[in-house]
């Protein structure tokens, strides 16, 4: 049995699943300290299902704490930034274009040394380990204990970064170190940014995820703890302690994954209707389609790809004007006090649904002007259809899975939609999505076409991605290749490409329950 927990800004949701059966779920207000609310939610579903903690084989937790630390500039550690490859990159300063306050919190200072690699993994000059060691000593002398190491073309060859890590470890075994080749793809600036943020979060992540593990142990939950990632997969808590930046933006992903699980449909659109907005995304093979655009976290451009979600200003609390227009203003969380059906003074989209008998809610039936409900229905339908059309990449009709508390606002018939699916338990789809997440691994290989074939390069990238997924907790036999992305290196005399691959597989609960020292 599994427990999924999703910590959101307003609610902490938990779901307990036995195989594919939902045994219990709960929605609670998020506590200020996060952990006590999570524990309360977990205890609630255990009690409600009458399940002993020993029967739980895994817990998956989705949390915004790492994102919030960056956004709020809290609990960050100033790190020593080391760049290897000064001879190829000196013109680009470390942490360029960062918000000044975030840079002050994250970066103690930066040092660039010569070295690093070429796109094919070769090295033109040896890494200047003497200067590197001096820099490390100077940082340690200032009390800096966390390091972000970024090597030019470390994605093609991690050797220079690994050597730098060894230099640091030899001097300070306790140092916290983030290496860029473990954090993404080609693009020195964005990858270095992610590495700096990651290094800066390591101490906080250690505390947060250890605290969860300790708290769950107190509940006699001895199963492995997993943490949700931005791409809809999970990592072990141990992995999350090393890669806290990978938890960014896991919320929308979990609700889309939950929709896929609840409906049993892997290729569909998903709409999550909340109090103020509806988020509409696309599921492909059960995973959210990633956005093509770069993503900024706390004002810093990173290389993470987030789910491609379109927000529409229609939710259960959206205000309805006399002409039938809906939103974007909303009573939001105050629906139970301010909506007409609860005796309040505001006419909301929920009131229109109550007046037309679509749902029954509150203690009175709102009286609406003649024809208003028809105008509202037309307006809502038109706007959903417009957004759905923008989201779709092909003319063919697709199913639409409706989740979230305001799902009743979505019409049963929509242009471009083959059928509207309203699975049971859709209100806790995010916690269910967390519980059923799988494990992924990514890797990229740069290659010159003269030296190696595309198939060889792809096989190597896939093997590396699989090794990472297994390290992150995947069952080796379950791994599937879900993405191959080729970036051509144009304008070269000798043509080359960069091949990025991603694999996904099931969580290896047995192995992780015993052996938790993957890295």
């Amino acid at each position: 049995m599994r427990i999924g927990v999703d910590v959101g800004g307003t609610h902490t949701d938990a779901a307990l699943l036995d195989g594919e059966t939902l045994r219990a779920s709960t929605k609670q207000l998020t506590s200020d300290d996060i952990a006590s609310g999570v524990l309360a939610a977990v205890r609630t579903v255990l009690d409600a299902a009458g399940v002993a903690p020993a029967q739980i084989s895994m817990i998956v937790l989705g949390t915004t704490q790492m994102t919030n630390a960056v956004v709020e500039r809290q609990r960050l550690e100033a790190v020593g930034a080391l760049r290897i490859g000064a001879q190829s990159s000196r013109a680009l300063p470390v942490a360029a274009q960062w918000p000044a306050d975030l840079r002050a919190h994250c970066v103690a200072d930066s040092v660039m040394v010569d070295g690093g690699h070429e796109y094919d993994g070769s090295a033109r000059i040896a890494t200047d380990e003497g200067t590197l060691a001096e820099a490390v000593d100077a940082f340690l002398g200032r009390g800096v204990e966390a390091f972000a190491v970024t090597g030019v073309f470390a994605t093609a060859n991690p050797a220079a970064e690994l050597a730098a890590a060894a230099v640091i470890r030899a001097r300070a075994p306790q140092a916290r170190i983030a290496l860029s080749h473990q954090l993404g793809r080609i693009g020195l600036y964005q990858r270095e940014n992610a590495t700096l943020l990651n290094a800066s979060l390591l101490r906080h992540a250690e505390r947060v995820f250890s605290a969860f593990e300790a708290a769950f142990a107190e509940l006699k939950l001895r199963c492995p703890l997993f943490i949700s990632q931005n791409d809809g997969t999970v990592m072990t808590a141990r992995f999350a302690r090393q890669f806290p930046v990978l938890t960014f933006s896991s919320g929308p992903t979990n609700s889309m994954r939950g929709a896929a699980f609840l409906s049993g449909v892997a290729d569909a659109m998903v709409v999550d209707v909340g109090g103020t907005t509806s988020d509409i995304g696309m599921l492909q093979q059960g995973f959210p389609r990633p956005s093509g655009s770069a993503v900024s976290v706390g004002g810093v451009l990173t290389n993470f790809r987030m789910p491609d979600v379109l927000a529409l200003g229609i939710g259960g609390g959206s205000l309805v004007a006399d002409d039938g227009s809906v939103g974007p203003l909303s009573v939001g969380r105050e629906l139970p006090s301010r909506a007409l059906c609860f005796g309040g003074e505001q006419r909301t989209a929920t009131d229109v649904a109550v007046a037309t008998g679509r749902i029954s809610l509150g203690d009175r039936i709102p009286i609406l002007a003649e024809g208003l409900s028809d105008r509202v229905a037309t307006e809502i339908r038109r706007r959903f259809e417009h957004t759905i059309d923008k989201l779709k990449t092909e003319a063919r009709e697709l199913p639409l899975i409706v989740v979230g508390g305001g799902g009743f606002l979505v019409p049963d018939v929509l242009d471009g939609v083959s059928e509207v699916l309203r699975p049971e338990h859709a209100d806790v789809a995010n916690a269910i999505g967390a519980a059923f997440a799988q494990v992924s691994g990514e890797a990229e290989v740069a290659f010159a076409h003269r030296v190696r074939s595309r198939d060889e390069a792809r096989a190597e990238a896939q093997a590396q991605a699989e090794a990472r997924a297994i390290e992150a907790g995947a069952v080796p036999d379950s791994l599937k290749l879900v993405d191959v992305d080729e970036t051509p290196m144009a304008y070269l005399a000798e043509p080359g490409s960069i091949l990025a691959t991603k694999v996904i597989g099931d969580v290896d609960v047995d192995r992780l329950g015993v052996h938790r020292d993957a890295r």
Partner: protein
Amino acid sequence: MLIASGCTAMHVDASDVQALALGGAFLATGGGGDTLIGEITTGVALEQFGPVALIDVQTLADDALVLAVGGAGSPTIMQEKPSAGDEPRAALETLERYLGRPADALIAFEAGGMNALLPLALAAERKLPVVDADGMGRAFPELQMESFSIYGIQATPLAMATELDNRVLIEHASSPEVAEQLVRQFAVAAGGGHCVSAEHPMSGAEVKRVAVLGTLSLCRHIGAALLKHGPRIDTFVASLEALLAPTHYGEVRLLFRGKVVDLSRRVEGGYDLGLLQIAAFGAAETVEIRIKNEYLTAHCDGQPLALTPDLICILDNETGRPITAETIRYGQRVTVLGIGAPALMRTPRALTVVAPRNFGFDFDYVPIEELPRPSERR
């Protein structure tokens, strides 16, 4: 000696770099690479060395020495190896030593992409003015496609420099095509995929004859308009029409809006070859864009909408920003714009070098103004 009396120059400082980079990305027609790195490094140089004078070509003395500078190689590799920062100066000074004379002004050989910015960073360091002009009015992949070469200016003597202080001077090349090959080979052999070249030594009089004028200030204005309008592409297009109306560029057309539904590509002979299909929202109509580093041709149902050297620019509907051919992805929602090329790039002489057949396509150039307007799109 350099600047005729009584004329004042515009200045470019660090606060202009974002707009210049965006405008450069727009005029790059999908090529030229992501301008973010160039934006950061040029901003750093202008902050360190101070603003640069951007001078009207008419203020150049006829005997002024003008040198063209820019980067050559793979923009993808520059994402990882942004440059040490010394290469532009090394290339320029190598050429100056050979010529026995310092440059009076610099000029961009390409106003599209990162190469719109590189001359400014170097000019700031050397306290030189930059001529408000370039050699393409857009981006093209090869040296012989510069208007300087097209109108008879020798690319050589040409100096190149890479990281780790590799320097080469080409005293003479038998053709622009040979010079192009030498630059590309050097970029790979000595720079791991990238080098900076200083080339096409010209007099002020020659620049007036062979350069595409006003393009750097145009970059800045287009970038400012992109920043101002964001995802409101319709109002951006109206601004763009107003900006281009008094220039030597041709007509602006909004060709298509849709989603990228297919992208097949391969790299061959140093080209990023691609076929991009963009489908109208909720309709069966599809536009095909052929890519060779840049977006070169746009067709709908076999009928041309715009053809090289006319510009094909693709904007992301979510952000209103230009999308490069290297980063365009399946599923992106985009708007395709077509712009008539600058007059200098559509002459019979230019069309012997930059027409569709020069890129291996089996059809002739027809100016965008003579093509049927796309039907009313959604």
